[in-house]
């Protein structure tokens, strides 16, 4: 077995938006930087897909910080970390300027003005990215900054000794080569997690960094919230019409028509309303809008396709991940940093507000993590790594390849997907069902994962991804069981309302003596909503059985302020 050793100051894992920013900032601080990606930088992860970017611009656009902060707190149901929300808002303009200076394309109207959207929650404004401009531009910038890129290598484990990160071990996905990285600092920019949904282009996003960090003892947060992306019934695997502008420029639906003919407005891109309607027996649901008679690009015949759920299966969004220990996205493990969707900033809270928070969050956290990692690396020595540790990690990385029989990663992934995909598990949760699925996922963890086998390097990657997905499933189930209330996109049939102030708290998960153990992190009291306000005013989005939302709020998609130039109705897709 060939082994390739690489020594660097800063190892950045993942070459998307966050990884690019982290790598370039660390390089600009004088550190040696290597970016490693299991795919091809500019084509892996979720960076190829965003079409909106929130930019807070009080100077040029007159944006009001308090109002924007209020909007996020309201849609995020007070579960956003206001400190991080404010950081991302304030620094989003710098990220935007950086992207403009690098030549990333933004859509403009005929007069050359940048097109802007409004998030559904009112005043939050975003600009529109040109299709497929961001990711290739970032790749070019990495190369221009002299950063080494190692591709088709999947990292499987962090190297940790004396409570410090010393590097990471990984395997090639195309031939049988082991890679050992020695680094003073590691920045995990590995994106979110999914269970490899068919077609939703997140199959490469399997929570690898979060899984490695968890196994290294680091705390993880935000796992109880559910991705609600839906797709077309005719071609369930092809969710371009919801997730990407290509090929037709289609905007996602604004509303749903139920089987009984009732039209329901969707108060945002990520609500559980479709799940609630399906659960009540009112599916098939048909998307409505944005304009009358708008065709679905998947739809060759008359009438739009029905909409079915679970497109972004297992996906976690902006703000879940590794609990940041400081303003530089460090962690409880010295030398380990995270950024982007692997970093648990909780920037948007319990529900995604729409309007492109992924890109600025990744830019801001990447920037901060890159600076933090470089500063750490400057003050640190390259520690020699115990050969025994590397040998053990290498052996476990290669174990699926060495096994003569067992379970194929595709099949285990299918079992996992089958078990967690139905809406009534993670979408509409209930204690008994969550426990039941946890039993099965526990079996997968204890019996199937240790017997995963791989016939070649391609399958070896998949075996490790499957292992990480099983871990992610356990995190999602345990966090959902622990939070005995409903909030945002976390819904429990057995605890169907928000519980203030008991659950004005975050859930963190950590390995304690080999067991995944959930704990609470209290939200600072001055971030709480005014508990004197009636429940319906605190929480305008009603769960089933609750009163209708406050009718005095802004209608869907309307801007709270600002001019109308280039206004696009509608809400962001998955970005």
């Amino acid at each position, binding site marked *: 077995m060939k082994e390739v050793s690489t020594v660097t100051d800063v190892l950045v894992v993942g070459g998307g938006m966050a990884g690019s920013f982290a790598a370039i900032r660390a390089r600009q601080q004088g550190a040696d930087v290597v970016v490693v990606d299991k795919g091809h930088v500019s084509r892996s992860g979720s960076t190829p897909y965003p079409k909106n970017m929130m930019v807070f611009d009080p100077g040029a656009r007159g944006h009001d910080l308090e109002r924007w902060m209020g909007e996020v707190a309201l849609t995020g149901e007070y579960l956003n970390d206001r400190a991080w929300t404010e950081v991302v808002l304030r620094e989003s303009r710098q990220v935007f300027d950086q992207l403009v200076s690098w030549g990333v394309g933004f859509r403009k109207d005929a007069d050359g003005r940048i097109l802007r959207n409004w998030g559904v929650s009112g005043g939050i404004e975003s600009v529109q990215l040109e299709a497929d401009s961001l990711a290739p531009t970032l790749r070019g910038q990495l190369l221009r900054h002299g950063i080494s890129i190692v591709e088709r290598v999947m990292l499987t484990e962090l190297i940790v000794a004396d409570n410090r990160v010393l590097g990471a071990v990984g395997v090639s996905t195309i031939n049988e080569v082991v890679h050992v990285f020695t680094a003073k600092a590691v920045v995990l920019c590995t994106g979110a997690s999914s269970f490899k949904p068919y077609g939703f282009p997140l199959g490469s996003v399997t929570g690898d960094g979060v899984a490695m960090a968890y196994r290294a003892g680091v705390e993880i947060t935000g796992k109880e919230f559910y991705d609600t992306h839906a797709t077309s019934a005719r071609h369930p695997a092809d969710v371009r019409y919801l997730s990407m502008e290509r090929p037709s420029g289609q905007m996602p639906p604004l509303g749903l028509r*139920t*089987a*009984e*003919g009732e039209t329901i407005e969707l108060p945002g891109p990520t609500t559980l309303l479709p799940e609630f309607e*399906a*659960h009540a*027996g*009112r*599916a*098939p649901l048909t998307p409505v809008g944005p304009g009358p008679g708008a065709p679905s690009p998947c739809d060759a015949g008359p009438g739009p396709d029905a909409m079915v759920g679970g497109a972004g299966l297992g996906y976690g969004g902006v703000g879940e991940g590794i609990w940041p220990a400081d303003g530089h996205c460090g962690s409880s493990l010295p030398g380990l940093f995270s950024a982007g969707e692997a970093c648990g900033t909780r920037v948007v809270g319990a529900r995604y507000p729409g309007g492109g928070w992924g890109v600025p969050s990744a830019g801001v956290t990447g920037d901060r993590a890159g600076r933090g990692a470089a500063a750490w690396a400057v003050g640190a020595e390259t520690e020699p790594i115990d050969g025994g540790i590397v040998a053990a990690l290498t052996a476990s990385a290669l174990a699926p390849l060495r*096994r*003569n*029989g*067992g*379970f*194929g990663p595709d099949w285990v992934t299918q*079992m996992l997907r*089958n*078990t967690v*995909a*139905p809406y*009534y598990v993670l979408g509409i949760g209930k204690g*008994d*069902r969550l*426990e*039941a*699925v946890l*039993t*099965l996922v526990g*079996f997968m963890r204890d*019996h199937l994962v240790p*017997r995963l*086998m791989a016939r070649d390097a391609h399958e070896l990657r998949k075996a490790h991804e499957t292992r990480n997905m099983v871990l992610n499933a356990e995190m999602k189930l345990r966090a959902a069981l622990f939070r005995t209330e409903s909030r945002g996109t976390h819904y429990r049939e057995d605890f169907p309302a928000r519980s203030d102030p008991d659950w004005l708290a975050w859930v963190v998960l950590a390995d304690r003596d080999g067991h995944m153990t959930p704990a609470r992190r209290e939200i600072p009291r001055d971030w709480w909503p005014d508990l004197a306000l009636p429940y319906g005013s605190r929480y305008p989005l009603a769960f089933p059985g609750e009163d209708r939302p406050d009718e005095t709020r802004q209608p869907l998609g309307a801007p709270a302020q600002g001019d109308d130039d280039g206004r696009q109705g509608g809400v962001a897709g998955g970005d």
Partner: protein
Amino acid sequence: MPQQPDVRVIESDVLVVGGGMAGCFAAIKAREAGATVTLADKGTCGKAGQTPFAGGMLVFNEAWGDDLEAWLRQIEVYSDHLNRRDWTELCFRESFARFEDLCAWGVEFERDAAGQVVRGGVPLGPCKAVHMGVVKPPLKLRRQTERSGARIVDRTMVTGLLKDDDGAVCGAVGFPLDDEDAVVVFRAGAVVLAAGAGGLKVPGWPIGDLTHDGDAMAYRAGATITGKEFVDPHAGRGDWDAPSAFGRFGKGGDDGKPRFGPVVDAAGEEMPRTGTLFLDLEFAAHAGRAPFTMKLPEGDVPVVGGAASGMGVHKAEGVWPAGHDCSTQVPGLYAAGDALGAMQSGATYAAIGQSIANCAVTGARAGAAAAARAGEVRGGVASGRPAPGVPPAELDRALAELLTPARRRGGFGPRWATQVLQNTMLPYFVMFVKRGDRLQAALTTVEFLRDSVVPKLFARDRHELRLAHETRNMVLNSEMRLRASLFREESRGCHYREDFPRRDDDGWLAWVLLRERDGRMALGTEPVPDAWRPDPSVPYEERYPFRYPGE
């Protein structure tokens, strides 16, 4: 969908549900007893169910030198002593008469040059089967059924039984697939359920039309069900997308018969082939020895499991008989074939050809008994007197139940619900290598499907209405399987519990019985009579020749 369907009434002494071997025998024998008979099949009688695929028939004949005690011993030993000796013997004794019936009706059996019937079997013991080939015999049966004067109603799914004010079965309701407006009310003095076994519609195994409809209807009418903890571990071909060991039709040997070869594990070690059906592959897969390969002359074929998932052991699951006339605990209701849980085989399938022979025997018995019963309630068979009245509230209930999915405007599609059910039940670690916590986990999901999905199933047309009812029946059957599996806290035959990995003769020489009590599924046991129990002084290894992991 009009709110008031076009109600067609079909009246006869006996209604037979299902047109395979058991159903045709029931119809013909009921006609021979003088009853008027209607036979309903959701497909086409003679082409539906498992009968077209069953080629072997076990025939016992003392004149051929067969030794009853030796034959019985084979079944007992390889059933893990859980067969009902009375039924096993009865079916042996009557199998030759049924064989002669089939010969008389034109079914041809394989014969040697001298004209003698060829018999074969697996080398477990003396039991032997004759071969009638596949596909064509059921057509002969259909012809004989027509000739007998029974009325065949094809492409009509029966969804529920009707009971009179005394609690006796007095008919059933159903609907034709080809008429979007019609429903059928069958009025009868007795009903024979011959609707076969069932599976979970795993593509490639030709039992997709069998969904335990008979068991489900009987259970809902108050009958007792047994044998649900035993599973069918048929394996299939992994090089086709769909597993199918039924590669008989052009894809097997040139002679049309399936071919088998030795199966090896990932390390190349040859797998045992224990009995006719045992869980060897499942145990090895669980231990991390998959993938498996079958060595065939034309090359290696990957072997996968769970091909017939959802099915139980032939002649070891279904409606628990109240008597040897195939009656049930519900007056007027009879069951035959795979729908009858007479436990002629036990915890594994003990002899090739037992199934089809017993379909013939129990079908004939059920038909005759149903005719007699109909005669009693109608004052003589074919008396021309009207069948007992169906209480209007009962008819309304049954028709509402039938039409609910068609009347809904939305809800859950039956294919999705079936897929979710398959996902829940198919993994080997749920229904093949069982453990209490995993069974309980699957049961939680199945209960959710029962309570929240089944009531909201919707159907856009009569085809989907059939699917919706099939899904409902599969969900019920899955609940039965999981509860029975949880209940039997031992391992026996094709029921294996990791947490109870051995046979427990003191506790579990007993059949598990299920029935509905106050809206819930209640479980109990019926002990194996002392006279049939294995000699406890015989060592465990001799009592039970098949080994579980670790034994």
